[in-house]
């Protein structure tokens, strides 16, 4: 049962990656957008080579949220183009497995975006990204998963909505505010001259809690939401 579930999820991930490797459409636009956001902020918020307090963490998560929204929208636009989402839903596979496949594909894309984004933020805002690398990795993984878990569900729901590009951020951002706050506060504690690991660990634990709640709710609601 579980093997079939993950087999379907893997088939969907493999297909999404094959399509993306051929076009590089989502990866290139998302990286370009994220880099532009960080550069624009760096011009305004770095004075005489010194960034304002805590600004690096906020800008990192703003860039993740904006580029994540772009990636979500473009990924499902692809499924809308030839109505292939309906073809996926017609398959006798567990529909939550389709959700997990789409989620994993978007997570992989955002991980690649962050490979560029995080060092750029470290460089421009003088942020110590390698000092407690494991903690930063945990914050990024937890925050991105929580954001994308909700975003994948909403983006799939809105595929046939005419105003999907407007509705996605309107629905997604309020729901993921707790994830963003946890990401920013945890990262800010890590980027202090003297990192506060206790505070960071608290926010990581909170992110794990949000992830469990969001992924469970999304798996539970995906099938009924997509049927009607």
């Amino acid at each position, binding site marked *: 049962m579980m093997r079939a579930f993950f087999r379907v999820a893997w088939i969907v991930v493999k297909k999404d990656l094959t399509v993306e490797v051929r076009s590089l459409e989502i990866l290139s636009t998302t990286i370009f957008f994220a880099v532009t956001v960080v550069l624009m902020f760096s011009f305004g918020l770095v004075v005489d080579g010194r960034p304002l307090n805590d600004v690096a963490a906020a800008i990192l998560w703003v860039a993740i949220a904006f580029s994540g929204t772009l990636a979500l929208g473009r990924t499902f636009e692809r499924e809308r183009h030839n109505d292939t989402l*309906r*073809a996926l839903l017609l*398959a006798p596979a567990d529909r939550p497995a389709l959700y997990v496949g789409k989620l994993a594909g978007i997570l992989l894309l955002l991980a690649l975006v962050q490979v560029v984004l995080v060092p750029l933020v470290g460089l421009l805002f003088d942020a110590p990204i390698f000092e407690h690398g494991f903690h930063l990795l945990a914050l990024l993984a937890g925050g991105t998963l929580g954001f994308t878990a909700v975003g994948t569900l909403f983006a799939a729901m809105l595929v046939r909505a005419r105003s999907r590009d407007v509705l996605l951020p309107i629905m997604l951002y309020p729901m993921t505010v707790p994830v963003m706050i946890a990401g920013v506060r945890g990262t800010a504690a890590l980027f202090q001259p003297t990192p506060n690991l206790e505070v960071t660990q608290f926010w990581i634990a909170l992110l794990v809690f949000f992830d469990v709640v969001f992924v469970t709710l999304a798996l539970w609601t995906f099938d009924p939401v997509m049927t009607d």
Partner: protein
Amino acid sequence: MGKPHDGGTVMTTQADFERLAVIDLARHYGRRKALSQVNFLCDAGEIIGLLGHNGAGKSTLLNILATLLGASRGRVEYGGRTAAAAGADIRARIGMLGHDLFLYPELTARENLVFFGQLYGLSDVAARVESALHRAGLGDRADDFVSGFSRGMRQRVALERALLHAPRLLLLDEPFTGLDQASNRALVERLRECQQAGCIVVLATHDLDIVDGVLSRSVFLHNGRQVGEPGPGTGLRDRYQKAMSA
């Protein structure tokens, strides 16, 4: 599993059925009635035409038959079981060709078929795909991207994708749109093969002249309501016009 797939045989499984029953079916969107009081039966080996003007409810009905949409009232029985009772297994017995073809243009014809074959959990996917490509007449273009195909070629790949798992119920939404005469003839021929193989084919179309003589029966829809059979006429178009003006 029953008989092996040979491209022209419907596979029999535990979730299989030989009769489709649409019983007092209705679908509302808020206060708008997209479908109301639709009733018909179809048996294995029949081709049923859903005929009506734009907005008559044909696509809504196809989506309900495909289990992609729930009914507001009434039910669809697949051999005596509803989709809710049969679960995901029933979807393994349904094939659908939508107006938008359900293909990924960035993948080749072969990759599209392999992807859906794997998604359906089919055995011996490579052989089935090879056979499907041969039937679509695309053996030599199998590794070309679908984005470079003509509408007719894409339609043939899409039809074979819908038939890859040898479904009992085949649902087609405007399958003749944008096809030339040769492609229309090939599609009609393929539908007759499916009919002979015991498939239940339900197709929504406006191309009355093409399907005249192909359909076993017709269901006329007008503003979401089923219109009674208009009686004998000189042809399908004549009966359609009588039904719509009744």
